[in-house]
């Protein structure tokens, strides 16, 4: 990736689109600390986060849902979200070790917050189902739930709609809107350009590791260079 620069303001949903191999997921891996950054800067809330490790990035409030459902597959839906509460505990290691009253109460509060998240996302009924037994659409929602567990202020969603049938996609779209409405900023990588157009305030277009356009959905849809980039790419990429 080179010469890519864009800003995201608080409360926005910014779409990151581009043909396969454009570097969208790479961008996410750079932001969330999985890939090393060779040059350039990433700042978040006024702080430079370039080169931070993934757990440190999470600590700052940047959550991430992966493209392929990345879950604790042999744990239940509830535990998948519960395990995401790691950063929220205030009580010390020793208090948690000795199961003091305070630590137990904290855990109890965490458990009810897990249920709140599951209800918010519509997975409450499935709380004791093993993650591996969920249908694909639900697994993707659960991935977002887990990311929400860290109480992010910025959420990176990597193709949340991929592999979903239209109904599931509509539900996911609604969920994304709800999350934004609750005050979370979102960066969205998505192949389904129609959905990106509907959901996002602003869109950044990448091809081959470069930014070729940035603007409102309408501007992007009319941008010559963008259309060309998409037509020149594999035929599975298209506007709809």
């Amino acid at each position, binding site marked *: 990736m080179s010469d890519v620069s864009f800003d995201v303001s608080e409360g926005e949903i910014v779409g990151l689109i581009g043909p396969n191999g454009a570097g969208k997921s790479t961008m996410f891996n750079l932001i*969330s600390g999985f890939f090393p950054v060779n040059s350039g800067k990433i700042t978040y809330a006024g702080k430079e986060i370039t080169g931070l490790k993934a757990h440190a990035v999470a600590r700052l409030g940047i959550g991430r849902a992966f493209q392929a459902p990345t879950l*604790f597959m042999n744990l239940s839906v509830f535990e998948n979200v519960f*395990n995401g509460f*790691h950063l929220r505990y205030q009580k010390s290691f020793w208090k*948690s070790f*000795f199961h003091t009253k305070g630590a137990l109460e904290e855990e109890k509060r965490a458990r009810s917050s897990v249920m709140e998240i599951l209800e918010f996302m519509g997975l409450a009924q499935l709380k004791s189902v*093993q993650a591996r037994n969920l249908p694909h659409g639900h697994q993707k929602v659960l991935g977002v739930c887990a990311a929400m567990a860290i109480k992010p202020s910025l959420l990176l969603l990597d193709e949340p709609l991929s592999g979903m049938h239209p109904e599931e996609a509509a539900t996911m779209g609604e969920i994304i809107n709800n999350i934004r409405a609750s005050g979370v900023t979102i960066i969205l990588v998505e192949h389904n350009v129609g959905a990106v157009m509907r959901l996002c305030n602003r869109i950044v277009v990448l091809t081959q590791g470069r930014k070729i356009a940035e603007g409102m959905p309408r501007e992007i849809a009319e941008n010559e260079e963008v259309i060309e980039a998409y037509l020149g790419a594999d035929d599975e990429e298209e506007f709809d």
Partner: protein
Amino acid sequence: MALLPTVVKSPYYMHLVIMTCDNIMLGLSFSLLYSTGLLTMAAGAFWGIGAYTSALLVMKAGLSFWIALPLSGMCSVLIALGTGAVITRIPGIAFLIQTMVISLIIPEVVGYSEFLGGWGGLLGIPGPSPIGPLRFVGKAPYYYLVVVLLMLNVLAFAALYSSRVGRAWRSIRVNAQLAETLGINLYRFRLLAFVISSAAAGLAGSFYAHYFQALEPGMFTAFKSINVQIFAILGGLNYYVVGPAVGAAIMTFVPELLRVGKEIEPVITGAVLILLVIFLPGGVLSLPERLGSFSWGLMRRTKSDGAPAKPGLYKGD
């Protein structure tokens, strides 16, 4: 359990019971690391470190066993911190091999050091000094001591597993990438597990030194660590507490009762390990589940581990 010494009169069987308890502690220390997805081959080495530290503190520094016991745990902690700071950075096969290297080096270091007793080992290690009316003569007092140590060990580990630390460990084992995205510092939690596990092994070693009252480098070679691995695998890797207990009991009693010679023991244990991995990767405790007839409440996996997992050895699940 407290009445066992009054029932079992034979010192030979009491010895096996005591050894079983000591081995269970080692098995627990192995399965603690496994709970975070690390397979260690250094359990035996840290057991040796604990044993030698304790023996030397008593014999050369003249300390009481009751002070040497926690100090030997501390010594294991320090060595685990030093080595773990390097080796827990790269999990998987690299960690396995590096712990293997530790368990190859430690006996050599001891063997070539005159101060540490050399290849001849240490003889005449004094037993624990009496506490009140309890004098350490015969098997029974040692049995009570080892049971107390084992209970403390089990309690501490159970507390860890049910706390947020245990959840973080489990998250790392099940999906390290996701765990990191959720803010878990993989390195710190792996190092913590390595240190705690080594401390437990060190305490088990300290007890052994003063129980058996003789040590030599051959006692904690890589074979010891392989044996420990078998305790955990034979019982069932998914049963963090009961698994090592069952495995250690079987592996302590069966070879003895079959009167297997010391020379061919490694052959037997090797064969057991291979057969286990092929035919019973879930361990003995997975048998009821496998037979599909019933599953015993006690033997169920830690509740928060969810439904029975497909046993998967050496390949993460």
